[in-house]
């Protein structure tokens, strides 16, 4: 445990935050999270569940009602933001309107005492990473949405902090650029060994970047674990549904059967009637009337060929069906 | 309905009821315009002589009259009521044309803080020469001749006493000895005088000031006057100046007839009786009854100032500025 804390980039314990007094909103409640050095953890959860609040508490911008924050093994709960050495990308960017793009990015190194030419060089390198090499002289008010978001990302990266908190850092970028940046970020994180806590609504992004995933719901963490585990074995029906599992069959007794993708084999087994088809960019989504419940399947163009005369042969591997508690209605409080 | 405009210095005040009677009697309205102290008042009249601001002016005094005459801001009018004023207090008797009718008179004089001198156990100065010695100079505050009418009055008195060169010498010595020169009378009296929180127990003010001090003292009771005023007059020979304030009709007045009526009104018994405790000066009309507190305001025997000095006071002020102030 001692070595773990030494290598831990972030260790947040029991953080709680209520906005606006006793009658206010409980934005976070006893949330514990840790990120090891060199590790990327994705923080997922529906809109308004408290993700940004967590990041702001960890960064020291919001005073938690209770709980402690350790960064690099050091208790920073009482320290101001600047003493925490954390790089933060704000969801709304918060770029400095009075500085050029380059000066925005160089700001972190500058205030930490780096001489100007060196800070500019470092900022220029970071701008290159986000494909904005030639934008250094621009005013930040003259950027497109995606460009501004990349400047915000570059500004946080340029601090070379051992812990990065990224709040939807790529949400306003097109998919190709996002894929490219994902690759570069992964390489960068691996190289510098920074711990990263990433808020994203893009599950592909979470999987591509994060080794571990934490799922929040209404101010609490409902599941945490290796990315693959969480996606493959959601702890509850709510988590499964949130992560995009379409096939949840409610059972009596507050339980629910989860039929994961891997449990389904196409072109084998019985042929069931297809009751709905909806095309999308990677193929189509079809609904199949299985005797135990409706099955929703995302088919690629190739797989669509299996549908013959309005029927699709699907084999459900009963061994892979998981029974999970059905908590989808509970805690659906105002968030 | 006509409107009569009266311009005056800032200290002018008269009973509203009296004004109302005047208005009623002449079915007119009276507007009062204040234009700074007497010196400023004259300058303003000179500046606006082509389009006069008012019909009648109150508050010009004998030290300003020659300039007013030269600038031609006044029309001649001699009120019949002037006969109630003793000849010594009338202006323009020698010229034959009366521009200003004396309404009141006062004496510019040094005052001292009785309590301070008692406590310090210091004797009072006896002469102006005493006053310029460091012992007393550092106890004295004087409003500036360049920017206040009591200051100018004292400058005239001092030049009258010593001649120009001697006066410059007196002023320079006194200033070197610690005499303070303030801009206006209020500064000298309310800021620098020991009675009011300053550190100078001798101040150039008016001979009537000790009476006012009694009148405005806490718990004043006309029936039970105190033994003496907290301040006293310091009539050093050659230091006092008789100031005669008058009222006259402005050249170019829109209501000349009413203006003359107002001149008469100022010399009428009602106003004359009202004057002393409002403006702290003596009414010019002989035999006007005085409030008993005026027993604290002694009248000095003033030295007559040479008419030549009064003719060009501005030249003396310039001389004072260059020879005293900016040395």
């Amino acid at each position, binding site marked *: 445990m001692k070595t773990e804390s030494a290598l831990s980039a972030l260790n947040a314990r029991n953080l709680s935050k209520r906005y606006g007094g006793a009658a206010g909103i409980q934005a976070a409640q006893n949330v514990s999270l840790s990120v090891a050095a060199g590790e990327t953890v994705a923080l997922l959860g529906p809109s308004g569940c408290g993700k940004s609040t967590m990041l702001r508490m960890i960064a*020291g911008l919001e005073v938690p009602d209770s709980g402690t924050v350790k960064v690099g093994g050091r208790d920073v709960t009482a320290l101001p933001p600047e003493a925490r050495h954390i790089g933060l990308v704000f969801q709304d960017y918060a770029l400095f309107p*009075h500085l050029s793009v380059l000066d925005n990015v160089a700001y972190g190194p500058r205030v930490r005492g780096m001489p100007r030419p060196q800070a500019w060089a470092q900022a220029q390198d970071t701008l290159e990473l986000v494909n904005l090499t030639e934008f250094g002289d621009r005013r930040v008010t003259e950027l497109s949405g995606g460009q501004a978001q990349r400047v915000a990302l570059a500004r946080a990266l340029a601090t070379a902090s051992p812990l990065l908190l990224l709040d939807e850092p790529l949400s306003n970028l097109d998919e190709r650029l996002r894929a490219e940046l994902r690759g570069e970020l992964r390489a960068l994180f691996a190289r510098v060994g920074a711990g990263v806590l990433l808020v994203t609504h893009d599950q592909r992004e979470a999987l591509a970047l994060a080794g571990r995933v934490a799922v929040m719901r209404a101010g609490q963490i409902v599941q945490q674990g290796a990315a693959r585990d969480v996606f493959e074995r959601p702890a509850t029906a709510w988590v499964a549904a949130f992560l995009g599992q379409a096939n949840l069959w409610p059972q009596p007794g507050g339980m629910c059967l989860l039929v994961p993708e891997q449990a389904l084999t196409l072109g084998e087994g019985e042929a069931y009637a297809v009751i709905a088809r909806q095309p999308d960019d990677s193929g189509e989504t079809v609904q199949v009337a299985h005797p135990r419940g409706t099955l929703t399947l995302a088919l690629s163009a190739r797989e669509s060929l299996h549908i013959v005369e309005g029927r699709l042969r699907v084999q459900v591997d009963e061994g892979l069906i998981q029974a999970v508690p059905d908590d989808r209605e509970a805690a659906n409080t105002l968030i | 309905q006509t409107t009569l405009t009266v311009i005056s210095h800032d200290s002018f005040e008269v009973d509203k009821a009296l004004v109302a009677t005047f208005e009623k009697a002449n079915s007119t309205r009276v507007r009062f315009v*204040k234009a700074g102290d007497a010196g400023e008042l004259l300058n303003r009249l000179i*500046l606006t002589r082509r*389009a006069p601001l008012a019909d009648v002016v109150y508050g010009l005094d004998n030290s300003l009259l020659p300039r007013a005459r030269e600038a031609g801001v006044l029309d001649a009018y001699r009120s019949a009521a002037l006969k109630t004023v003793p000849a010594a207090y009338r202006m323009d008797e020698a010229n034959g044309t009366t521009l200003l009718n004396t309404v009141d008179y006062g004496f510019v004089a040094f005052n001292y803080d009785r309590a301070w001198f008692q406590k310090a156990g210091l004797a009072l100065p006896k002469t102006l020469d005493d006053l310029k010695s460091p012992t007393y100079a550092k106890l004295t505050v004087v409003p500036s001749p360049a920017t206040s009418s009591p200051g100018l009055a004292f400058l005239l008195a001092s030049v009258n006493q010593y001649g120009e060169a001697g006066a410059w010498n007196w002023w320079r010595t006194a200033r070197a000895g610690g005499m303070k020169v303030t801009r*206006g009378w209020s500064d000298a009296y309310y800021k620098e005088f020991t009675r009011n*929180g300053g550190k100078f127990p001798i101040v150039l003010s008016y001979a009537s000031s000790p009476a006012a001090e009694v009148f*405005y003292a*806490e718990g004043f009771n006309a029936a039970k006057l105190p033994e003496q005023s907290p301040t006293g007059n310091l009539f050093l020979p050659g230091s006092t100046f008789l100031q005669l304030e008058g009222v006259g009709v402005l050249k170019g007045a829109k209501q000349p007839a009413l203006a003359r009526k107002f001149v008469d009104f100022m010399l009428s018994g009602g106003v004359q009786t009202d004057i002393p405790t409002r403006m*702290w000066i003596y009414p010019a009309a002989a035999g006007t009854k005085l409030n008993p507190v005026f027993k604290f305001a002694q009248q000095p025997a003033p030295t007559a100032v040479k008419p030549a000095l009064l003719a060009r006071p501005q030249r003396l002020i310039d001389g004072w500025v260059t020879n005293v102030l900016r040395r």
Partner: protein
Amino acid sequence: MALLLALPLGRTLAEGGVNLGIWRDPYFLGRLVWTLGQALGTAAVAVAVGGPLAYLLSRWNVPGRAAFLRFLLLPFVTPTLVAVLGLTALLGPQGWITRLTKLDISDGPGLLLLGNLFFNLPVMIRLAHAGFARVPPNLIGAARSLGATGWKAAWTVALPVALPGLAAGFVLVFLYSALSFGLPLTLGGERYSTLEVEIYTLTAYQLRLPEASALIVGQLLLTGAATWAYVTLTRGGAGVTAGRALPPAPPLTRAIIWVLMGGVSLISFAPLLAVVARSVLTSGGLSFSAWQAVLGSADTWALVGNTLRFGVLALIGAVLLGGLHALAAWRARGPTSRVLDGLSLLPLMVSPVSLAVGYLLAYPALSATLPMLIGAYTLLGMPLVTRSLLPALRALPPRTLEAARTLGAGGWTVWRTVTFPLTLPALRGGAALALATVLGEFGATLVLTRPEWATLSTGLYDRLGRPGERNLTEACALATLLLLLAVLAFTLLDGGEGEVT
């Protein structure tokens, strides 16, 4: 503007011609240097003390914050003579503080500088606070998470973003201190008099207009240069004053705020308290007879009524004209905008003494009429409204206005539903400052024409023109009344929220 400013000024200059030879006199060059020096010094101290305090107050809540911000307007209401009374009661040769500390600063320029600060720290703090309150909190958060300490973030982010408000404070303080003449007249003595005092002496007492005109021209060049520098230097600004609740200050910050607030209070409130104290303290000890006399007299209520009536009239004028002026300067683009911006300071750039003379010469018939008087005070209050409102308008995020238009709001509706509510705090603040100016100055420098038009400040000046202790205590009681009236007016102006900025 031409009618109200240029013409009278031109008439003053034309009356006697301009004798520039006076500038060869080292005496007047000395006055020029001193005028500039004391004004710059005052403005610098005001920024150095008021800037940080305004910043902290815009970020943190401490007990007493709202009251402090509101009372801050009081010195502005105070007639110069009352301020002098208060200051000398404390720091004069026999002042309470002087006697306590045995330290007499009444002979040097110290009292004058303190007097300047007494009036102007509040201006600085309020305008700077308005600027800082608009800085989006997330920008500070971003700076700090990037490693900037609290002060560094203030210096590198909040300051540049709030610069227009800060600079407005600086230039106003500079202009007030450079052109004020009441204070140097009474506190400066002969040694520390300023150019404006010399102009006053030359015109009012010596009637040497050519020389005075030369000084006026020189002074106009000085203030013009300052204004030009201000207009070209202030750019940017971002954000709106979102009425969000401020977090309570952490202990150290709270201590700093309290120390600064205490210092400012000492300079700006203590003299007022001294005046209040003087209204009940006589040589014979505690006495309320002055109050009895003042409150018992029907005249007093006429004074209060007039003060309010004229004040409100001038306030309406100042808010209307100043508001329109700010809108025009905001709407206009490029150089036009800058010229309009600078023009709004014109009433503060020209010497009030020469203006007064100009009025006499240009409009002899009007010079002592009520409309002229109200016009003049409108003109004095206007720059304060413009200076508060313009930075707020310029900081409005353009997208917010665009959003309103795409939602179907026409120009006027946008103004009514978005622009106005978002800049209301600034407008209120400007209006409060303007009202303060008017309440305190009304009828004191320009001369009222009828006894029944007398205001509190004329009543007060009348009493200070007569000898006798009672006059002094009654003047102090009237001053206290004026202050109470002002507190009431400000409370109404800011809707009781204590948040006028």
